[in-house]
């Protein structure tokens, strides 16, 4: 376990030196504050509207941003170490491949968590102090869940990056595939589902269809931040509205989305020719 923490600490330090941490934190803080105060500008009002509105618009924006940041942060994890010759060296140390991967996950999740907590947390506090008639408990619940689910979403894409990173032999290839994965989950998948829905004129099994959303981690993230407000989603997510997904079920499926890619990444790392 000590070696896991040593690797995690090194990753965290690397993230600080690269200015990754500062950059992500700033981006999150600006977005969160901007959305909470000007999010309802499109409907003609300025200022804080409601917790539900703020969190929903935050989650629909972060669905694009967070996976991208996580992928960019983590794609060099294995292939980068390999290119620098440090992977070869590390494996001659009393450190197993599992510990290495776990340490990386811990370190890079910490970077993302710190950025998320500070970035969105500051927006949450600014609402608490400056907005009128906001219930603190309600606000903290909503933002707390939002932050936790955002961290989980980040972890999912970090683990997906590890799969790529331990599979391919060149860093540039890993970057390319990471972008394709992002594009697929953020845009293509939902469009495909909508296409399916339109093509079948809605004749598809209504019981099964919502579950297809669970095959896309970004949709699960949005669902998590919808179920608490009992509001109906817009667009594709509206099909899930009649279907009652429990929060626990959604969080569990996010965890599955972490464990499965992580295991696959570990398997590829073991098989990787050194």
């Amino acid at each position, binding site marked *: 376990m000590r070696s896991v923490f040593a690797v995690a600490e090194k990753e965290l330090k690397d993230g600080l030196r690269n200015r990754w941490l500062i950059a992500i934190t700033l981006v999150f803080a600006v977005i969160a504050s901007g959305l909470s105060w000007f999010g309802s500008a499109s409907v003609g009002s300025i200022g804080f509207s409601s917790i539900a509105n703020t969190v929903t618009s935050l989650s629909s924006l972060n669905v694009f941003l967070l996976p991208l940041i996580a992928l960019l942060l983590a794609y060099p994890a294995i292939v980068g170490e390999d290119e*620098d010759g*440090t992977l*070869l*060296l590390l494996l*001659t140390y*009393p450190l197993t491949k599992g510990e290495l991967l776990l340490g990386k996950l811990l370190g890079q999740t910490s970077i993302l968590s710190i950025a998320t907590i500070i970035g969105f947390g500051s927006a949450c506090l600014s609402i608490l102090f400056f907005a009128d008639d906001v219930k603190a408990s309600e606000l903290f619940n909503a933002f707390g869940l939002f932050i936790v689910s955002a961290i989980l979403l980040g972890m999912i894409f970090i683990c997906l990056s590890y799969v790529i990173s331990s599979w391919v032999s060149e860093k540039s290839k890993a970057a390319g595939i990471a972008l394709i994965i992002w594009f697929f989950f953020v845009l293509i998948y939902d469009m495909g589902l909508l296409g399916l829905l339109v093509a079948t004129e809605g004749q598809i099994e209504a019981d099964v269809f919502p579950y297809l959303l669970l095959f896309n981690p970004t949709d699960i993230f949005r669902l998590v931040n919808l179920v608490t407000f009992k509001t109906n989603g817009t667009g594709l997510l509206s099909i899930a509205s009649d279907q009652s997904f429990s929060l626990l079920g959604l969080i569990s499926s996010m965890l599955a989305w972490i464990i499965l890619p992580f295991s696959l990444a570990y398997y590829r790392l073991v098989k990787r020719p050194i």
Partner: protein
Amino acid sequence: MSIIELKNVSQQFDQLSVLNSINLNLDKGEVMGLFGHNGAGKTTTMKMILGLLKPSAGTVRVFGEEPAHSNFNHFRYRIGFLPENVSFYQQLTGLEVLRFFAKLKKVSLERCLELLEQVGLTEASSRKVKTYSKGMKQRLGLAQAILTEPSLLLLDEPTVGLDPIATQEFYQIVDNLKNKGCSIILCSHVLPGVEKHIDKVAILSKGQLAAYGSVQKLREQTSLPTKINFSGCFNIEELSNKLNTRITTNQEGIFSLEVAPNEKLQTVKTLLTQPGIQDLDTFPPNLEQLYYHFVISNQANLSQKSSNGEIPSTTGDKIRLLRKGEKS
């Protein structure tokens, strides 16, 4: 018990045979030089000893255990490795990099500082590694390799990028560790200067062990001539007839001749009885000459086989390159 034992080890990647029936032994406190051209199988051999690769055939034992087995992990505290071309973590400082590796081996901060001092990086220790020169990275690499005062040290091209003084200091560290009982494998294609620090030589060529043994033993195996340089006043023609060899002379007035090992003593005796002799030096074949001899004869063997229609070969070109002193 041998620290390292390789028995009939072969390694194949797909259809390509990289190593062919290698037998090696390394005892406690021994230093072995592992030489060979690029692609000869040096790094593959190292990787098998480190347990990063499993041999396709044969057995590898390190400390009497199988290094590729997961149980081997606790032996890794006793192994130091300096890879070729390692660029470390560019964003971290020298001390941070060493601290990271030290934590993995449960080594204290004091030891890190002491090592940085020993390799001459104290002043640069708070600078980022990306500002380091090749030689400085190499010294940092050496520091991480000897973090635990290892029982087994594997060094891949350790002196690349080091200036002559740093090289000298490096060999001092190697000698010290050897005296403490550390077994060392020194992998290189840079040969001058290495000879007096090693007990054993293993020369790999095209995946085969072309030569193996002490430098002295290898000299005996070849009949490469010993060179004798001498100076003084002589009747060269008479002397040449007497010794039955050709004598050459250079611009500084030093004469030299080459003589087979078994005639060396007789020749020296004859020279010493010459009244005009002022100085005399003998040069037995050095490691570099032995290396070329073994590599070329091994490749000649292979190309002979290939002319019998076994392997299509470009060995002829390689030999010509090697003769020009090309080390690749």
